[in-house]
Each structure stands twice: as C-alpha cells, then as structure tokens.
C-alpha cells in the first residue's frame, strides 16, 4: 500500500530526475542569494514547507506587490485524502499574500465541503478571503488549437496576481493532474464538458489528446504568476476523486512556471513529463520549460 512511499525513494527519484539540483538541509540554507525558478521542500509540516519553498523563489514579494488583488485557484473540490490540496498549504500561501500587503484575496472556486474548517491556521488565513462572484465571462482563445472559446470565472482575469495551488495526483484520463489541469477549476461545467466531448468521439476520455490540448490552450489565457503544488499526500490510483492508494512524498513544490512545476511533480507518480500530453503540449505553446536541467531548481529537506 502506498502510504509508505518513503522519503528515501522520493529523494533518490528527485536527485536522479533533476540531474543537477541537490538536496540541502534547511539549517544549512539561509535566505537565497539568487532566487530559484522552482523549489521543492520536503518537510513534515506542509505549512512550513510552503513558506520555505516560496522564500526560495525570492519571497512572496516577487509575485504579490503591495495593494494587489490576488486570485487563488485552489484544488479543493474533492474530499478524499490525496485528492485535494492540504489546507495548510493553501493557508500558508494566503498568509504570505496578506503579509505582502495584498489588498484582497479572491477565491476563484466555490469552496466544497468544509475545506477551510479543517485546520486552525486555515481558519485564520481564510477569514478575509472573498468568495468568487459566480459570474463567468465568455472569452476567445486566440492561439487555441482545440479550445477556441471558454467560459471563465471573471475574477480569473480581474485579479492582479493569479496563484494556482494544486495537488499532484493520479487522473483516470490523463494519468496525471496538477497545476495545468487545475486551471479547469476556473471554468463553467459547459466548457469542461467541451474538453471531454468536443472531439465528437464519445466518452468522457474518448480523446485524451484533445483534452490535453484544451488544457494547454486554456493556460494560454493566463498562466499563473505563482504555481504551488502540494505533494504531501497524493492519490496514486482512482484519481482524481479517490479513494485510492496514497503516497506521502511530504513535499511542497513552488515555481514561477506551471509547466516546470508540473514537469517536476510527475516523479511523485513515477511518470516522465515527456509522457504527459498536457505538459508536452503546454511546453509546445511556449508556456514553460519541461527540461529541468534548464531550470534553476532548489531542493530542501527540513
């Protein structure tokens, strides 16, 4: 059973896959001399891991100017373990935004179940978060190859800063889901249906290539300014809803590129990013780098 996905295995996989970045202990690392493009922090406390990962990118100030309106797109739709972002990860992101002087934080997705109620720190961070309006706008996707039009929650565009907070997990159709796919959370159900059925071949996953291209096209509309991936407890089977096998890499990954963060996180499911169509297609659209040798990756273990 996957609950025992060991730290040792994870670290070995991380080192092998990243070809260059090395793991440091937090005690040996102070403030970063030069901001990383991507930072992965393995820690028992997801809240602290998130703070550390964003600090290593140059701090939240790099992404959230004082007085900014922040749009938070959190994957909190499903309640089963490993199927949603740990609330401590989201809480840490929100807390940092307030600390940076954000004017407001908008939740781009209706809260499901009792997401923010689970942890004390989540309660504190969530208190001032503004729920989304529930109003959608229809927009063209000028460079879209499969997706030409989409109905998107209006705050997706209205926010000064977009932060995508997702969880790396198995997906029945695409085999992998995290930051890029989480962008679908900003869409109406009608548009999501197009992703699945717009190819006309039938079946929810009748054409995964088409679905993957739609995800890539969607990210053309707006790439997140900051991408945070929760890989603390992840679903490795029966995704995206669960319940299913769990792995516990106990890691939080943050980066300025959704594509690179997704490319990095595929390792937690034993996948190669070159085999995940939505990542490959997003990179082909110029949305980010999948070759992590070209990305300044920093890894820590607290």
């Amino acid at each position: 059973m996957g609950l025992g996905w060991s730290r040792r295995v994870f670290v070995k996989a991380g080192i092998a896959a990243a070809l260059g970045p090395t793991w440091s202990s937090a005690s040996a690392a102070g403030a970063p001399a030069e901001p990383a493009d991507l930072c992965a922090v393995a820690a028992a406390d997801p809240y602290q891991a998130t703070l550390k990962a964003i600090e290593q990118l140059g701090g939240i100030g790099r992404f959230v100017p004082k007085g900014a309106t922040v749009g938070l797109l959190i994957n909190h739709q499903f309640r089963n373990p490993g199927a949603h972002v740990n609330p401590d990860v989201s809480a840490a992101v929100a807390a940092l935004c307030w600390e940076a002087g954000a004017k407001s934080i908008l939740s781009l997705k209706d809260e499901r179940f009792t997401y923010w109620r689970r942890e004390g720190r989540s309660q504190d961070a969530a208190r001032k978060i503004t729920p989304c309006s529930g109003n959608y706008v229809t927009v063209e996707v000028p460079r879209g190859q499969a997706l030409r039009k989409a109905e998107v929650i209006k705050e997706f565009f209205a926010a000064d800063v977009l932060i995508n907070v997702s969880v790396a997990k198995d997906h029945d159709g695409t085999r992998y889901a995290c930051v890029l796919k989480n962008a679908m959370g900003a869409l109406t159900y009608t548009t999501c249906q197009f992703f699945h059925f717009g190819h006309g071949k039938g079946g929810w996953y009748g054409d995964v290539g088409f679905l993957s291209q739609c995800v890539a096209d969607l990210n053309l509309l707006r790439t997140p300014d900051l991408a945070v991936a929760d890989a603390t407890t992840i679903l490795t089977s029966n995704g995206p809803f669960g319940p299913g096998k769990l792995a516990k890499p106990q890691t939080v990954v943050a980066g300025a590129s959704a594509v690179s963060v997704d490319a990095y996180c595929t390792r937690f499911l034993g996948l190669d990013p070159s085999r995940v169509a939505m990542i490959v297609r997003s990179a082909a659209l110029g949305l980010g780098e999948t070759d992590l040798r070209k990305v300044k990756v920093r890894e820590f273990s607290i």
Partner: protein
Amino acid sequence: MSSASSASILARCRIAGGAAVASVCVLTAILICLSPIWVPGGAAADTPDRAILLLFPKPEEVLPWAPDGPTQLAEGQELFALINGGAELFLRHGFERAAVQSYSLASDRHIQVEIYMMQGVDGAAEVFARKTGPAERPLALGDAGAAGEYYVIFRRGRFLVTVAAGDATTDAKATILRIARAIENRIPARFP
C-alpha cells in the same frame, strides 16, 4: 466578453432537502414528514432519492461522529458535478443515482460515504472490479468487499458503496467498517 450566470450553465448535484431539489412532490414530502424513518439531509426528497437516503445509518449509529452538512445527491449526468471525471466510470456501466454524506468528528476529522445505485448488478460489479486491485485486501462485506488503508469498498446487488476516512487511525478504520456494515444491512437482498 459576455456575462453568463453560473446558475444557468453549471451542472449541479443536488442537496437533500435543499432548494435545488425543485421537483419535490408535495405529497411525498408530507408522507415523509409523517414517517418515523430518519432520512439524512431532511425530509424533502422525492421517492427515488429517498430509497438511497434510507441506506445511510442513523446519526446515533455513528456517534461520536456526526453528519457534516447535507447529503449531496446526483442523478444521471449530475454525477459529473459531484465527482468530476470520476463519473465516467460509473456512467459507462449504467449509473442511476448517488448520494454522498460526510461525517465529522471535531473540526479536523472526517469520513465520506458514497452510495452509488447502478441500473443493474453487472454495473456495480464492473465498477467494483475497476476500483479495486492488489492494493486492497478482500473483505467479507456485501456481495464483494475490499479494504484499503483508510477506506472500504463493497457492492451489494446494484449498489456500490465506498466509505473513506480522512486518516488511517484505528478509530477511523473501526468507524468506517461500522458505517459500511450498517449500510450493508440496509440494502435489501432483492432491490427492485
């Protein structure tokens, strides 16, 4: 850009007793109100929904855990709004309706119960086979059952049930088994 209201374009699952259940028959509601049988999520559920709602254990059977929020209901394509892409598997094998109820203990512990009513026994068996594998151990529950580290899945007749905890503590595992057995006992041997 044109504005669109989410209410008109979002597929929605329904909440037992909630405003979204628009087609509630007044007579049914009156009958249910008069009934001594406990129905999760309130009494305002139409007859097919009521059949599945009655499978949930009574609150006193899950103590000290308590129902957390209303029961969510989905029929046919509404399942997409409830479990997103996970719906494909069920719809492919003849999904009819589902009900999902959460239970909580304190603010940070939860259990989620999902009951899926399929159109036939074969559909429940197909989904069960797909959702279980070497990761789960066989469990004597229903017509076939399996247990993962923090969840149990079983099928009985044309029902497929999953009961999943948010943690794998001894207490949580005992509770999910208790809930699963309570549901198993409520599913009639010959459901129409």
